[in-house]
């Protein structure tokens, strides 16, 4: 269970970039952490490292945004936000199932702790805000 202590946004981005380089496709990333912890920053850096040129804007309002990638192996990045979610069925309603378990798609779910259960294969990323704007990032 790698654990990182980061001092600023740039360091958070570096960890996300490093993680992105190790992704092969088909992964499910489950992010948790309070409002302002830096989940969006993490996902934005990750997406950038995957080669997405578009802005990764918050999917809070529409719950899910799908980005196309030109990489041969990974061709879609799906960004999900459970912040406003009440029932996990809502994710099925918006069609998340279509994107799960495809080895050419990467799915990142913010506020994943709102989902009562996650598949075992999910890579769990927790960002905890510590004193003095430092953060602890745990990946397992």
């Amino acid at each position: 269970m790698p654990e990182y202590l980061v001092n600023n946004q740039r360091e958070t981005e570096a960890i996300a970039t490093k993680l992105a380089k190790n992704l092969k496709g088909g992964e499910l990333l489950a992010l948790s952490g309070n409002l302002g912890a830096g989940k969006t920053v993490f996902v934005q850096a990750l997406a950038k490292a995957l080669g997405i040129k578009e802005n990764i804007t918050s999917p809070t309002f529409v719950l899910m945004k799908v980005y196309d990638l030109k990489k041969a192996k990974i061709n879609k990045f799906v960004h999900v936000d459970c912040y406003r979610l009440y029932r996990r069925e809502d994710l099925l309603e918006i069609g998340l199932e279509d994107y799960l378990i495809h080895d050419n798609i990467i799915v990142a779910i913010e506020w994943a702790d709102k989902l009562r259960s996650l598949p075992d294969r999910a890579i769990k990323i927790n960002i905890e805000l510590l004193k003095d704007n430092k953060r602890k990032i745990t990946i397992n």
Partner: protein
Amino acid sequence: MKILAIESSCDETAIAILEASGHSLKLQKNLVYSQIDIHKKYGGVVPELAARKHVETIIPLVDNVLGKNKLKNMDYIAVTSGPGLITSLILGMATAKTLAFTNNLPLVAVNHIEGHIYSNWLSNSKLAKNTKKYLPALVLVVSGGHTELVLMKGYGQYKLIGQTLDDAVGEAYDKVAKLLGLGYPGGPIVSRLAEQGDKQAYDFPRPMIDKQNYNFSFSGLKTAVLYTLEKKKNITKQDINDLCASFQNAVIEVLLKKTIKAAREHNVKSIMIAGGVAANTELKKALIKESKKIKLPFFYPDLKYTGDNAAMIATAAYYNIFSKTGDILKGDKVFDLQPRSNWQLSKNKI
């Protein structure tokens, strides 16, 4: 021509009838059923609940609006087909497609944001009467899901010149309200408390204010509010008011500066605001003042048209037809229309 419009992109079910010809817009009916009380306790819209409520309300609302004349004399059906929640969009669209197909009426697919922009035409008759005089226009689109600067060159001609890189303005208000334990929706609550607060009390960052582009970022501002909160021990009512006022002040300053700068750079003939956050009085006041300084007319929608409604969808449909820039489907082609939950206004239409 007479248009029946249906809007169901989020948590409002809305139906309107517009009678329009030339430069005259006559709104005949405008009904909005808001689900806000249903979603309040969850702190945000629950898509499944929203969809179920749309199912219950949409047909009675259509019935109510049409009355005994039914679709007699109707020329077009218009419907919001994105952006929005897909589960909500499909209900309005299914209703519109069915009505269009069974009554052999053409169906106009309207972009929700374009609808918000046209709420200005509905609210300002001089804009409707003399559109040419006011275009190109710089439009600040601000809502729960959007924060964009759009250059409107002509009917149906939009260029996105800047947008938020993370959270939308309305979303930032909602999240700050949540941090402060104020309830949902955040916009009206935060701006009401801000009236009693000192906007200079906290020096929050003005994200990206000096960047040479027209993009925005509000995620970090929310985090700054969080940091301030964590440092404070006893938080009084006045502290909350001051936090609201200082947060709002930072938001407005960034929106204002970029809007005015973009308006000057693009040599527009007017400035407009559109979307749910167009209800914010302080933001409007600031824009009125600054537009005056650079001698540009500033248009804003009537309060009743700032939230989601079908009157604006009917108006956008009318101008789509009028300027031949819209997506109009006929016969069984109406069933080809699909919801586009992330439909960008400046990208090509369907």
